[in-house]
């Protein structure tokens, strides 16, 4: 299939030609390409003509007759294509209406021939132009209007030019270059978009619901791209969202970032002025907060709103408040109406396209209404979140826009698994049949029921396999939120296997990867907005959404917080004095309160600041308190609440810092980080934050706080600055944008970062270049709290390097220990260690050290593979010792007749022990926990795989290497039964009931039912497998490969679901693995290159 011949020339030319805009250019293209080959040229022209003139022929109809959605869509698409190419008004129309100026005197720009005006904006004129060099192409050139080149417009224009240049997205009109005309007017050259407004396009091409939503997703993602670069469009409306046909598909182009304004109001060294009193944009699509004339506080959510309105219009053919009403009542009234009244839901409007069914209505209503919520805090936090929800709708998954009811969720889940559903439908049919038959048909009914039960079970198994598979894919993607969701789903929806209903054991492991055990959790009655810890780490103080101030004893897990007092309105900021006696808290409405923590009394309440308090800091010397008020100022006072000075700062104050010596106050501004002198209250320094533009989060790190860490609103990275010099010395990539809180460990080498989605990432910093630079890597990340949009997830460090606390919108305060929160952990086994066991009950790691006392003296010892019932065994020389795992005391010594031991294993009850040399196998039994023992039997058998005991120590499963078969030997009688033949086996495994037997033979993976001999999985020509493990619940098989990868198989449906673990770096050969407590944790042992052993733990720690 890979050696595909070159396409016939006719097809090649045809496919190139259809990409061209019109018939004329197709013709010239063919003339040029075909040269003298008249036959070829005629052939292609005939094909193209047929395409134009025969939109509906036999093949079309044949395929269109299929009841297939996508097939129909395809035909539809082609019809539209054909329609488009025969309708010149569509393809050659310019984005905006043509202005035919009589006295057209275009500005002169070198290398461009300005052809005609194609659009006129508030501040510029757009020309259709021909670029002459270096390549010939048609472009759009935007030049500032004559007579309007005021300072303000040029400043705004420069803003646009640079903002656009930063963006590179197929759905955003590209900027090729920029410059100034001979008369000094700035211009820039943009991609010429031959499209029409999205609303017109959808109408003209009669797009169905899905296609419209897909365009909406594209639009969201394009806008999100811009947002990530700090650019808000602020004027999204159908005439700025054009759609054109490209390669037969509708492609959107967002044009005219003309009123866009970088979030940081400074680009190209100039202030980007958006005139305070001038309303920019079109009221119909504009968010209510944009209407406030002093719109300093406009963020990316205004674009989310506008897209919401566009989607509203795509669904209903009308805007929430329509044009007529706007004309009638005027702009001011319009906005007051918008803010006062909730608009009709789309489904309440007369549907424009008539594609609404009952369910669709509801979900799309939720999505649209969330996007156009008057309160931006209730909107989607970002355009990508909006897109994700629309996509979820398209994928048939539950949308986030509303808490879904059980019935809704069930309906959606069922739809996600189409095949399985058809089986469930079959089941329904057979049930109906059963209800209608008479008695004499009972036998038939019985058979039918059995069949339907089987079908149902099969459907359920398939569903489980799909869910597990999805969870594994999510695991590889690192999307913890989704993984948590899926694991919860799997846990709450157990499948009955072998008559027992329980979630697959693998779910435990997946859940442990998404979440982590805490070292104490405290439940608060409302969302925790702010947290501070005392210096000794004994107590924490929280402020919450109710405004309550509570003190928590961190050493008393599950304790109830002591209520100190309340703001009676949401509070977000809290700080504790260094001596731990006093605290200060700040409310959303700007009130600051000082509290006596010892007796829980209010010391002082200050008159509210202009805006809400976001951050409070107590200086390390205890003498000052700084309070950051949202987008207004920083208030600084003494420890008694007497004002010292104020700093005006039109920025968020999600963090403030004091220098370690308390002489400096550090605050982020819109363009940099400012350092103030605490004595004078004057700014003494500013620190450049390039490449970050919108610093929100700050933290000191490194030895003696020498590094200043800054995080941004939109970038997915942190920067590390040398605080003394202000020099950029490092950058740390994050997995998510907008770190909301950062705290550093005591030694300054670890950062813990929180995100709105409930995630915490732990970053390890390390100096490089002899201290001249710093690098950082994500050590681990996990879901700590319930995701909530656009809130800060407060963090506070506890003393030492490893502990910290976090608070969430779920009302929880968690205490974390860094050792517990790793997902996978690679350890090198110390040289002094001979063996490592995972304690089955707890998942903790226990090393067997080499000691002077026997039997751990030599390296040449053989250990049993795992701890069974609290014991393990070790063979050295002619002695086998049974060792108590807890204190590693030898409880029995067995004299073995074997010449050299290769394998050693206990039965599941730990009362039978098997040992093997290459040619012999011995079995011992003890009835008094190895107080005494006897040799039960001894067999001459040459084997390659480690033998296994089962059936209460009655049966031995072992391979017969010479006879190429697998034997089941009754230990008492010595009777041999053949389980499989013609195989050379290198590894054998059993599940806990010894029902299923897994084996690795040369290039063969085989799992069989031991009793029925039914083959469950048979994979020939399957290389590279070194270990197998069957889960005890019979759902999964783990396949360990030599290169360290671990795959998961689903036994009921007999398919390989996907990767559980893939080593990031080359690891040695996988020797052994151990799995604790119903697959809650795994340990993999690799033989590494240096000769030792590396241990890998997934996930880091299991619960108590």
């Amino acid at each position, binding site marked *: 299939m890979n050696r595909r011949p070159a396409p016939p020339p006719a*097809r090649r030319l045809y496919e190139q030609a259809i990409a061209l805009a019109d018939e004329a250019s197709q013709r010239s293209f063919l003339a040029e390409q075909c040269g003298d080959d008249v036959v070829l040229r005629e052939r292609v022209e005939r094909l193209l003509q*047929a395409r134009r003139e025969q939109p509906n022929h*036999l093949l079309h*109809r044949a395929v269109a007759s299929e009841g*297939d959605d*996508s097939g129909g869509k*395809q035909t539809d698409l082609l019809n539209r294509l054909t329609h488009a190419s025969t309708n010149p008004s569509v393809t050659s129309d310019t984005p905006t209406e043509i202005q035919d100026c009589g006295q057209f005197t275009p500005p002169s720009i070198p290398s461009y021939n300005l052809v005609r005006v194609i659009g006129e904006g508030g501040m510029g004129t757009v020309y259709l132009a021909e670029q002459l060099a270096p390549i010939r192409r048609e472009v759009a050139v935007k030049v500032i209007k004559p007579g309007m080149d005021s300072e303000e417009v040029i400043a705004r224009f420069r803003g646009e030019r640079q903002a656009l240049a930063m963006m590179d997205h197929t759905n955003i009109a590209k900027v090729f270059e920029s410059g100034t005309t001979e008369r000094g007017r700035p211009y820039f050259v943009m991609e010429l978009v031959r499209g029409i407004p999205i609303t017109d396009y959808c109408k003209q091409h009669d797009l169905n619901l899905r296609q419209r939503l897909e365009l909406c997703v594209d639009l969201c993602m394009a806008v999100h791209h811009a947002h990530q670069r700090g650019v808000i469009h602020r004027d999204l409306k159908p005439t700025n969202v054009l759609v054109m046909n490209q*390669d037969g598909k509708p492609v959107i182009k967002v044009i005219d970032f003309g009123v866009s304004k970088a979030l940081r109001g400074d680009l190209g060294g100039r202030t980007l002025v958006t005139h305070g009193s001038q309303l920019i944009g079109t009221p119909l699509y504009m968010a209510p907060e944009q209407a406030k004339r002093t719109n300093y506080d406009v963020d990316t959510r205004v674009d989310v709103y506008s897209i919401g309105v566009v989607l509203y219009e795509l669904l209903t053919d009308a805007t929430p408040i329509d044009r007529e009403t706007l004309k009638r009542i005027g702009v001011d009234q319009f906005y007051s109406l918008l803010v006062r009244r909730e608009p009709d839901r789309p489904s309440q409007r007369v549907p424009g396209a008539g594609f609404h069914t009952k369910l669709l209505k509801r979900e799309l209503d939720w999505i649209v209404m969330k996007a156009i919520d008057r309160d931006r805090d209730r909107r989607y936090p970002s355009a990508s979140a909006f897109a994700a929800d629309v996509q979820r709708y398209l994928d048939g998954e539950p949308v986030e826009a509303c808490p879904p009811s059980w019935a809704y969720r069930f309906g959606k889940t069922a739809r996600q698994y189409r095949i399985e559903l058809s089986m469930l439908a079959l089941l329904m049919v057979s049930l109906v049949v059963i209800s209608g038959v008479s008695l004499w048909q009972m036998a038939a009914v019985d058979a039918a029921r059995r069949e339907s039960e089987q079908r149902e079970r099969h459907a359920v198994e398939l569903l489980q396999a799909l869910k597990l598979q999805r969870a594994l894919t999510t695991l590889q993607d690192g999307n913890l939120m989704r993984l948590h969701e899926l694991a919860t789903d799997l846990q709450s929806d157990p499948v009955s296997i072998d008559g027992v209903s329980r979630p697959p054991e693998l779910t435990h492991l997946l859940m442990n990867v998404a979440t982590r055990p805490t070292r104490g959790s405290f439940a608060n009655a409302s969302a925790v907005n702010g947290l501070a810890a005392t210096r000794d780490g004994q107590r924490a103080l929280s402020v919450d959404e109710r405004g309550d101030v509570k003190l928590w004893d961190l050493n008393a897990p599950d304790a109830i917080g002591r209520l100190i007092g309340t703001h009676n309105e949401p509070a977000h900021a809290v700080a504790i004095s260094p001596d731990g006696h006093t605290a200060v808290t700040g409310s959303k409405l700007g009130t600051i309160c000082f509290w006596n923590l010892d007796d829980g009394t209010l010391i002082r309440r200050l008159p509210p600041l202009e805006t809400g308090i976001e951050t409070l800091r107590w200086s390390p010397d205890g003498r000052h308190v700084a309070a950051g008020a949202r987008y207004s100022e920083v208030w600084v006072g003494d420890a008694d609440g007497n004002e010292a000075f104020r700093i005006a700062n039109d920025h968020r104050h999600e963090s403030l810092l004091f220098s370690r010596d308390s002489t400096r106050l550090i605050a982020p501004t819109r363009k940099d980080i400012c350092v103030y002198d605490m004595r004078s209250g004057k700014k003494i320094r500013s620190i450049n934050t390039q490449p970050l533009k919108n610093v929100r989060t700050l933290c000191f790190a490194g030895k003696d706080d020498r590094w200043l860490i800054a995080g941004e609103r939109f970038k997915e990275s942190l920067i590390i600055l040398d605080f003394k010099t202000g020099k950029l010395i490092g950058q740390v990539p994050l997995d998510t944008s907008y770190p909301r809180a950062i705290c550093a460990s005591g030694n300054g080498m670890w950062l813990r970062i929180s995100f709105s989605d409930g995630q915490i990432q732990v970053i390890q910093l390390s100096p490089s270049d002899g201290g001249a630079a710093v690098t950082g890597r994500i050590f681990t990340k996990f879901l700590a709290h319930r995701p909530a949009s656009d809130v800060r997830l407060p963090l506070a460090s506890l003393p030492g390097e490893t502990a910290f606390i976090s608070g969430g919108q779920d009302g929880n305060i968690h205490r974390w220990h860094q050792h517990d929160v790793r997902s996978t952990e690679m350890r090198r086994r110390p040289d002094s260690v001979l063996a490592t066991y995972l304690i089955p009950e707890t998942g903790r790691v226990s090393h067997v050290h080499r000691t002077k006392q026997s039997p751990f003296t030599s390296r040449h010892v053989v250990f049993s593979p795992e701890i069974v019932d609290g014991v393990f065994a070790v063979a050295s020389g002619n002695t086998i010792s049974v060792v108590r795992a807890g204190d590693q005391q030898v409880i029995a010594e067995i004299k073995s007749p074997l010449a050299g031991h290769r394998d050693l294993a206990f039965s599941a009850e730990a009362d039978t022990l098997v040992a093997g040399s290459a040619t012999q196998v011995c079995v011992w039994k003890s009835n008094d926990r190895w107080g005494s023992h006897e040799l039960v039997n001894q067999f001459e058998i040459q084997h390659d795989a480690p033998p296994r005991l089962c059936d209460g120590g009655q049966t031995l499963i072992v391979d017969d290497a010479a006879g190429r078969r697998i034997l089941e030997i009754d230990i008492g009688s010595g009777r041999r039964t053949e389980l499989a033949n013609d195989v050379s086996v290198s590894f054998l495994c059993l599940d806990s009931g010894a029902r299923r037997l897994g084996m690795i033979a040369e290039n063969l993976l085989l799992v069989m039912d031991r009793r029925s001999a039914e083959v469950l999985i048979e994979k020939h020509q399957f290389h590279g497998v070194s270990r197998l493990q069957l889960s005890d619940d019979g759902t999964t098989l783990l396949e360990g490969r030599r290169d360290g990868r671990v795959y998961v198989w689903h036994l009921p449906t007999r398919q390989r679901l996907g990767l559980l673990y893939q080593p990031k770096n080359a690891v040695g050969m996988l020797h052994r693995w151990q799995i604790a407590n119903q697959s809650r944790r795994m340990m993999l042992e690799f033989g590494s290159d240096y000769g030792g052993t590396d241990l890998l733990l997934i996930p880091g720690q299991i619960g108590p």
Partner: protein
Amino acid sequence: MSDITKILGRIDAGDDRATEELLPLVYDELRRLAAQRMRHERSDHTLQATALVHDAYVRLVGSRNESCWQSGTHFFAAAVQAMRRILIEHARRKASQKRGGGWSRIAIEDYEEQRVGELSAEQLLELDEALAKLEVEDALIAELVRLRLYAGLSVTEAAGVIGISRSVAYQHWDYALAWFAVELQGD
């Protein structure tokens, strides 16, 4: 069920003989399903390739994940052949009936078969002949058309089976339509 899974497994492992064994299995299943439908529904019912092939897939390969195109490729290749055989047999039978039967019957069938979106037996045979011609000229496009026509796959699904991108498949499909338009115009 395990038969076909095994065969698909062997094909995956590069066993060419397994491909030959697959076709009769798929053919039998499709024919059985088709016959079932014909019995239950009106005798002139046009065979819905999509539904049939998907049903056969669920029945034969059901326990595997549908998105597992690795084996899907082989399955659909066999399904296309089988389905073509069934459809053409069906069409031939109908066509011959028409020629041999009474005139009143022709009238009814003609009326029935001219419903939008359905093909008469002759039309199907005509398409199949054209397809044979396309096969010689451009095997790739022919494969695409066959998957669409006989296995009832969408362009996207067919792209997955052939192993080309969706957008390329759409281009090819565009070409296929034009090619057929020219071909069916007659000379």
